[in-house]
């Protein structure tokens, strides 16, 4: 039996089974089981310290669970050992974090395109221009990050994350530095990408705008999944 046959939901979004994680003997996640469907935007919500970011990092392959299984996009994320395996998994994904992480020595255009060129991604300039227009940063394309506001820099980092039309998008509080109307636009863009292109989107947020835009919400508290529901307004 092949891996895909053994795990029939292997290619259907992201699956976590029995994932636990501790830091310095302090438990952060307890036997978490969660499914983030493909083609849907899932929000992981919960109070501060509930383990949301840890869950996201493990699902994204940025951290390793102590126990459990993580399957995503044809990869057994919990078993990625070599750099080659890790970069192969990560290069198909988009990452949006609170810290935009733009390189100050490069222009906005270079910050968006260069990481993808380095991985030989095909980036459609028309798609990038569309994203920049939707997120209101089209006029910044030749500026350096040091001249942008925090909100503008964050929006540029979102464009960077989505430029190559990834198969999975991981986002940790992507709208924390943004005003309400821009937040709505960000989730609109994420939603369009998710639904139109079959992307699996996982967002950590406790923002009402995010919850409003979500297809599925998973509540986490004290490292345990307390509930999961589909947004009826989206269905």
């Amino acid at each position, binding site marked *: 039996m092949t891996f895909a046959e053994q795990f029939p939901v292997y290619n259907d979004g992201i699956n976590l089974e029995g994932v636990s994680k501790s830091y310095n003997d302090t438990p952060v996640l307890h036997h978490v089981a969660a499914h983030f469907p493909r083609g849907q935007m899932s929000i992981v919500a919960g109070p501060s310290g509930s383990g949301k970011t840890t869950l996201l990092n493990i699902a994204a392959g940025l951290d390793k669970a102590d126990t459990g299984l993580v399957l995503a996009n044809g990869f057994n994320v919990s078993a990625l050992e070599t750099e080659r395996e890790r970069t192969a998994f990560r290069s198909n994904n988009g990452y949006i974090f609170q810290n935009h992480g733009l*390189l100050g*020595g490069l222009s906005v255009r270079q910050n968006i395109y260069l990481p993808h060129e380095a991985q030989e991604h095909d980036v459609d300039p028309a798609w990038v221009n569309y994203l920049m227009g939707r997120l209101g940063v089209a006029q910044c394309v030749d500026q350096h990050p040091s001249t942008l506001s925090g909100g503008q820099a964050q929006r540029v980092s979102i464009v960077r994350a989505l430029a190559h039309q990834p198969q999975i998008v991981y986002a940790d509080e992507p709208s924390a530095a943004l005003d309400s109307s821009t937040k709505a636009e960000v989730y609109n863009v994420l939603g369009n990408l998710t639904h139109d292109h079959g992307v699996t989107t996982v967002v950590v947020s406790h923002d009402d705008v995010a919850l409003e835009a979500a297809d599925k919400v998973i509540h986490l508290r004290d490292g345990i999944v307390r509930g999961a529901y589909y947004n009826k307004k989206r269905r």
Partner: protein
Amino acid sequence: MKERRNSNSNKKCTTAAIAAGVSTAALGYVGYKTGIAPDFLNSTIEPTPPTLPAVVDGMVAVNEGIRVAAPVAAIGAGGLAVYYTVAGLMDKKARALNTFSRADYAGTDEAMQPSSRLSGKLNTLKKGTGVAALAIVLTSATSGVEHEVSNGPLRPIDAVTDLVSQGDSDTMAYVLQGSHNTFMDDSYIEKKRLDPVVADAASHGIPIIPFKKELLNINDTSAIQISLPDALFESIIQTPVDASCDTIPVIVDETVKKSVGDTISINGVPAQVAQVKEGMAQMNRSIAIVASSDMECLQKGTDTSYFGAMLPESYKDEVSSLLAKHDMSELAVVNDDFFKENNRDFWRANGTPILLQLIAYIAIFGGLAAAGERKNALQRNVSEIGMLNAMGIGMTDMRKIEDRRALRETAKATLVAIPAVPLVAGAFNAAVSGMEIGVGPREITVGSAITLGAKMLAGRRAVGQFEKKLNLAQAVKG
């Protein structure tokens, strides 16, 4: 905060190098006083038959090997730079890596307003290129100094034999008290025993030229004084020599800075410059030549021995037979190559240990500075590099970026160092009479090749250390 980290790293490197130098000098002094230190730590010059510690021999061989390999390495590095540039024109991944290597990650928390971007660029230049340029200047100069110290002493030997042979292409052989006697130590052959051999040789048409050697002062500066037979000396200066000691004609080296007709003082005795020659000087020693009869004026008749005798190498066997005939077969007859090798080994044994320490300190400084600078650059930008890693740019690509950066910065540093290296060498040459440190492309390629190697290793090592310590989840959190 981040600026202070790199500045601290450079201070630590300099402190480490100075501490190493002071402690080694202290060890050497203690060892010398107690007599328990290894020979190579003792930098006092002792004119004993040259015995080279294996490490010194190895060090010289390494320097000479690097001097041969460095131009090849420089051509290779140039080819690599061209390859990266062409690849960047044809392949987007290569172009991206080239561009990343120019930016040096620089996160936005080192925010630069447009008006201060120049100062930011100057800061970056100082960190990456400045340290490298300093390393190139010091390494190039050191390679040139070592080469001069090892080979410079052969220069005056060639100058004197050229003068004596007067254009004859035959190489010389030397009659000496012992086969390992060098120009810097003593060799005594009694005048009354060698003169009959010389007369016997002359009767058979064998040109053998006995000479004396003394360490005297020319205008209060030490010089090696050599005497040649009166007839030979007269044929060189084209002027008869009298034995009155009133006017002593002398051939001097250009480092004495006198012109023909000038009067100089040799151990307080007035002498007149008859000719000025080039190449009759080595580090701290020039050679002056007088007639044999005038040497006795300078020695005031206290010495009745020759240092040795020169002869064309083709007569070596015949002279050996003559020596045996005159019951002087205990003397050595050595050829030019063997004599020069002993002289070279003498200076290597005495001078090179000092350079060994100097080279080691420079290597410590350069290596630590390069390693520290790259480690700090990566640590300063953990968040940005973590983001790139999270996006799928792995450490393999990071190493390629570091290689490109090392190449670019070394190329820039070489351009900065090119005008500086001759200045440093010129300062050495001006400070030490007779020194002729070479400052050509070879020395600069030595400095560049060593610096490029150090930077590439440092960059790759920094990436390796970064990879081990990287907590990606923490890094992207910022």
